[in-house]
């Protein structure tokens, strides 16, 4: 009932925005129409998702103020084959929801953005240890970022001085990753809504002699859940954490060197609670390389080191040191087609993630996307656990 009310509210807001957009030049209203099919890649090979989306975006600029609103109208059929196959989990739905909706104020040296927005931190490719604000939807990784990242309601202030920028972010309501984790007997407990649980952070960015760098601090909650046994049964919780981060990029010839690292200070500071994450260090070092004109390669080394390690007190899923590598190979014939292969490989368990994406530009504004999301590896490994989220995707998108 509450959901219905919420949908009606969004429908109302959507209509108001469309109505507001009537006297506007056509250029201010944009969007796309997309048909999509997501067949599952694991037995029993159900068509996980099949549907149509209309996205309407309105951008209106008035002197120092921008209004941006983007709504999705989804007519969607879903079948979750990662759940218990005995209970059919097929759902047909019509949903209207905002992708982003915000007001931006641009003053001489300050930008202020209020509302639902994407906020990304970090400079490395695909894996960003300092990026803990905008959650992921791991159940819906496709060609476009707005399909698998979830905008947050936030206040973001950027203060620019010289070559530097100080960004302040405030997110009052916590929104977790969508991981597809489904434990029927477990209860999910989101952080209580109180000032002490508001999330906030700072990021200082600058440049010296062609090198861009940032230092950041984030106080918030782990976007991934922890499953904790309590008297009443299992509880899915999101633990508080503080993250101190640093990142840089530097261009040299055909290369752009990138690095990003973070120290995570978790609730279990001494490492004595086996159900909470210990403090850890997480970093990525790598480089983009232009191999030949339309062919580029990004290679990265990723390492996570758990601190305060106590044998026997650690979760069996935790490793003291986890080493991985990621790669992105891209071939782009701009205006015609592009091929991209993104991959992440964990050395310890031999599990991996693959995301090949093919985009063919049929005509100006008309694109065909085809690709697949593969999670593979031993059953208890980070990617192996998500095998059932593997699927292909085919999408036709007309932008206007």
């Amino acid at each position, binding site marked *: 009932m509450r959901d219905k009310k919420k949908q009606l509210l969004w429908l109302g807001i959507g209509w108001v925005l469309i109505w507001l957009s009537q006297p506007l030049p056509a250029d201010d209203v*944009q969007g*796309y129409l997309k048909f999509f099919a997501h067949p599952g890649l694991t037995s029993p090979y159900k068509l996980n998702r099949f549907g149509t989306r209309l996205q309407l975006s309105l951008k209106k600029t008035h002197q120092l103020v*921008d209004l941006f609103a983007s709504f999705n109208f989804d007519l969607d059929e879903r079948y979750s084959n990662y759940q218990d196959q005995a209970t059919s989990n097929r759902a047909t739905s019509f949903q209207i929801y905002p992708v982003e909706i915000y007001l931006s104020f*641009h003053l001489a040296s300050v*930008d202020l953005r209020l509302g639902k927005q*994407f906020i*990304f931190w970090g*400079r490395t490719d695909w894996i960003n240890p300092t990026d803990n604000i905008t959650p992921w939807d791991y159940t819906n990784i496709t060609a*476009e*970022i*707005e399909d698998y990242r979830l905008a947050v309601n936030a206040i973001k202030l*950027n203060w*620019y001085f010289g070559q530097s*920028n100080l960004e302040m972010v405030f997110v009052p309501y916590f929104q977790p990753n969508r991981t597809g984790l489904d434990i029927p007997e477990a209860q999910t407990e989101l952080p209580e809504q109180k000032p002490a649980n508001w999330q906030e952070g700072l990021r200082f960015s600058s440049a010296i*002699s*062609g090198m*861009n760098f940032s230092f950041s601090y984030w106080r918030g909650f782990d976007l991934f859940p922890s499953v904790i046994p309590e008297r009443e049964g299992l509880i899915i919780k999101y633990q508080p954490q503080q993250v101190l981060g640093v990142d840089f*990029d530097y*261009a*040299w*010839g*055909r*290369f*752009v060197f990138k690095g990003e690292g973070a120290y995570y200070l978790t609730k279990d500071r001494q490492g004595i609670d086996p159900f909470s994450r210990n403090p850890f260090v997480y970093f990525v070092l790598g480089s*983009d*390389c*232009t191999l030949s*004109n*339309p062919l580029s390669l990004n290679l990265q080394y990723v390492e996570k080191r758990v601190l305060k390690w106590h044998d026997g007190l650690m979760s069996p899923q935790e490793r003291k040191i986890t080493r991985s590598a990621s790669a992105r190979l891209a071939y782009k*014939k*701009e*205006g*015609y087609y592009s091929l991209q292969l993104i991959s992440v490989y964990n050395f310890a368990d031999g599990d991996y993630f693959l995301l090949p994406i093919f985009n063919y*530009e049929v005509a*100006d*504004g008309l*694109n065909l996307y085809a690709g697949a999301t593969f999670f593979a590896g031993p059953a208890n490994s980070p990617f192996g656990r998500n095998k059932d989220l593997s699927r292909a995707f085919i999408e036709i*998108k007309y*932008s*206007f």
Partner: protein
Amino acid sequence: MKKILIIFLIFTLFTPLLSQEPTGREIMSKVVLKTGWQDMEAEITMTITLRSRTRTRKIKMYSRKRTEAESDIVMKFLYPPDVAGTGFLLIEHEKREDERYLYLPALRRIRRIAASGKGGAFMGSDFSYYDIGKPKLNDWQYKNLGIKEIDGQQCYQVEATPISPQIEKDTGYSRIIHWVDPEKWNVIRAEYYDRRGKLWKILEAKEIQEISGVWFQTHLLMKNVQSEGQSEMKFEKIAINKGLPAHLFTQRFLSR
């Protein structure tokens, strides 16, 4: 004998002054370092044709000279809708690597791209990133090949060869032949040769207009003789020396 020697010395010393024939570098200096404008903005319509398939891109461009040898360019894509909002920022440096940033609205992120990707195709066109940037005078050595006639017009023909193998590798050009209009100091035609020495592209300035006292190439056609494709750039709504603010050439503006 002494008399002949004196006459010979006078002749040798004063011949260059008497002929007043500019060197290749002097000609290209005038072209590259045109001092008539400090900044400009324009709307560009780029039409890319390959195998009878045509793609259109509309771009808003801002450019400014920071120093005589350094300039900044920012471009924002207006059309087609699926690339609208894409932004490109180029900050040129004389003594270190240029900075290049690409803003992709689908990713909501600014990505730094390699400076030596300058030989790469600009948005899939037959213009490279190097072609659309301000050519660096010191990247090339020049030779005046004399006055040549093209389409009934007398032009200086100047050959440019890369100053180092790295420049050749970065730009993809082993040689460029420029035809320079000696009145407007504009390149009206150029031939680009690939690293194997084969003719690769031909640039034609189809239209040159005088805007605020400066002669501008307002319609460029780049023919790729190897792929048989071609790209056209038409400049409209050109404004010069409006005092474009420095904040336009920043990552902040790129993502707005």
